[in-house]
């Protein structure tokens, strides 16, 4: 038997160097602490923290979640402690770890995005910003920023003005042409893209004739959205030159590898953490095993090796 060599897992996302391509998805891993009992945070490619806004946010009234076929709907309403409390109370904890910390930010105006970005750029321990232009739960802003290529580009420009950190724009799938939005934010200076955020959906309780979520609509996540996410990542990587991070329904190594194959440089694991708190490291180990079994020495050798073959027209 041939001795197996340990595959090279590091990836480079523009200026951002990651130990490996497995990161956590915003809103599904708290501020890291919540999972430190389960996962050695040092082993992660990056931790993306819960979306941060300028002021603390109360969030939506309950019920906020509902299970649906192969996934779940959520309408958390971006409950978070606010950027200042994050810097004071949560960041010192994360600094103890040798892991890239990516702050996911949210604003209801350009000025708010800018203020949050500026505060996070002035402190040690934040390695990149991920700009949520896509949260479907909040009535003001949210959806509108990410659905119009021009507005998305403007947010990108405004945030870039305030920071030297790599800026990742997180795209919403609730659009007709995601590649057009991707191209617009790339032109506006985005360093990387992450996609997808949740798909807007709803669920009805037959007995009470009411929605299951108090907010009526919510964001769909989990395995149910993976095919949509994969298709969108594929469409976007064909269109842009900046690195793309694949997100959506990844629960195991095979899912993650599919995203890399179609061209994502890294992946984020979201809802899977809820059903398996070890999901991130399980996925990482599964990817390493796959590379070893297939004698691939470097993860980068797999990225973008997808062979589309025949026609790409469905019907």
């Amino acid at each position, binding site marked *: 038997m041939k001795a197996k060599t340990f595959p090279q897992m590091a990836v480079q996302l523009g200026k951002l160097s990651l130990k490996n391509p497995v990161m956590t998805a915003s809103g599904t891993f708290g501020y890291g602490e*919540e999972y430190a009992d389960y996962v050695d945070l040092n082993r992660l490619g990056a931790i993306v923290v819960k979306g941060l806004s300028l002021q603390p946010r*109360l969030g939506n009234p309950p019920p*906020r*979640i509902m*299970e649906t076929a*192969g996934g*779940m709907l959520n309408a958390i309403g971006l409950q978070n402690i606010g950027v200042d409390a994050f810097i004071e109370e949560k960041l010192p904890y994360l600094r103890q770890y040798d892991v890239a910390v990516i702050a996911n930010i949210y604003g209801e105006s350009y000025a708010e995005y800018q203020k949050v970005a500026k505060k996070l750029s002035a402190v040690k321990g934040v390695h990149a910003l991920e700009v949520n232009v896509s949260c479907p739960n909040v009535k003001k802003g949210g959806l509108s920023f990410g659905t119009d290529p021009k507005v998305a580009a403007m947010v990108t420009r405004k945030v870039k003005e305030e920071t030297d950190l790599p800026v990742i724009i997180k795209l919403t799938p609730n659009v007709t042409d995601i590649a057009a939005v991707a191209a617009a934010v790339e032109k506006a200076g985005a360093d990387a893209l992450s996609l997808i955020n949740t798909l807007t959906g709803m669920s009805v309780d037959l007995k009470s004739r009411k929605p299951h979520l108090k907010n009526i609509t919510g964001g769909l996540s989990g*395995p149910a959205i993976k095919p949509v996410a994969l298709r969108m990542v594929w469409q976007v990587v064909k269109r842009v030159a900046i690195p793309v991070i694949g997100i959506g329904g990844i629960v195991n190594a095979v899912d993650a590898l599919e995203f890399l194959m179609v061209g994502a440089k890294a992946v984020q694991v979201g809802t899977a*953490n809820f059903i398996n*708190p070890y999901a991130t490291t399980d996925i990482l180990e599964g990817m390493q095993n796959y590379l070893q079994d297939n004698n691939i020495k470097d993860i980068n050798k797999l990225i973008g090796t997808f062979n589309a073959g025949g026609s790409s027209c469905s019907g």
Partner: protein
Amino acid sequence: MAKNIFIGEILRNEEIRPNYFLMKVQLPDSFDEPRPGQFVMIRIAGLSEPFLGRPISIYSYSLRKSFVEIEFLYRIAGKGTQILAGLIKSSQVEVHGPLGGSYEVFPEKENIVFIAGGIGVAPLSLLAQYLCKNVCLVPSRMNFYLGAQTAKEIVGLDKLTRLCYNIQICTDDGSQGRKSLVTQAFAEDIKKYDPANTAVYACGPKGMMKALAGILGKGKFACQVSLEERMACGTGACMGCAVAVKDKQGDVAYKRVCSDGPVFNLADVIWE
């Protein structure tokens, strides 16, 4: 690293009343001794539906020679619990826990009052068990008010009769015990209890706990309640299981049932 996700083997899963089940699960002895009020997230390993775990209170705990046995008392409420109910002896379930905080106990208080509606008996029963075994409280100090719509929904009595002397049973239709709401039965007895020397614990439907809040009034009795909300992670990460409570300044705050609770002070809970 915490290792609190286990594969358990079902030793027993019986319908004790129509739609009410008692499940006994064997777990490795590394499963921590639960504190009363704690719960587990239970899933069927490898199944994609139900996708998320379901929170279920720990009803009893026994440490055997080289393993642990825990019991759950549950009601079929929908898809997930329906599938649980269909599992046969020696099938496997994934058990994540024990999770959440616990009831604060006051061994020095003269009276311990439990008020349970329906399946709410489950966490309170573990509390009574704990008070007997770990705090050596005498059964005569424990007063249990157990209510349900009809006799068919009165569950958990066999265990309770071994733990408490004073048990009052109430049903809406009088088919077992008194024909009254459980909160009403307690309200009639309230003069028997000195607020300063009584600890009240309650778990049941929202309507019951809201009524209880009205009966207990402002701050006279210390009352802890177990709340329920749909959950995804069970560990405090997703903010999905929020309930509205008053914070220190008296403003509305959303707390997580899984990690800030499931036990809350009744006086802090904001009802719709």
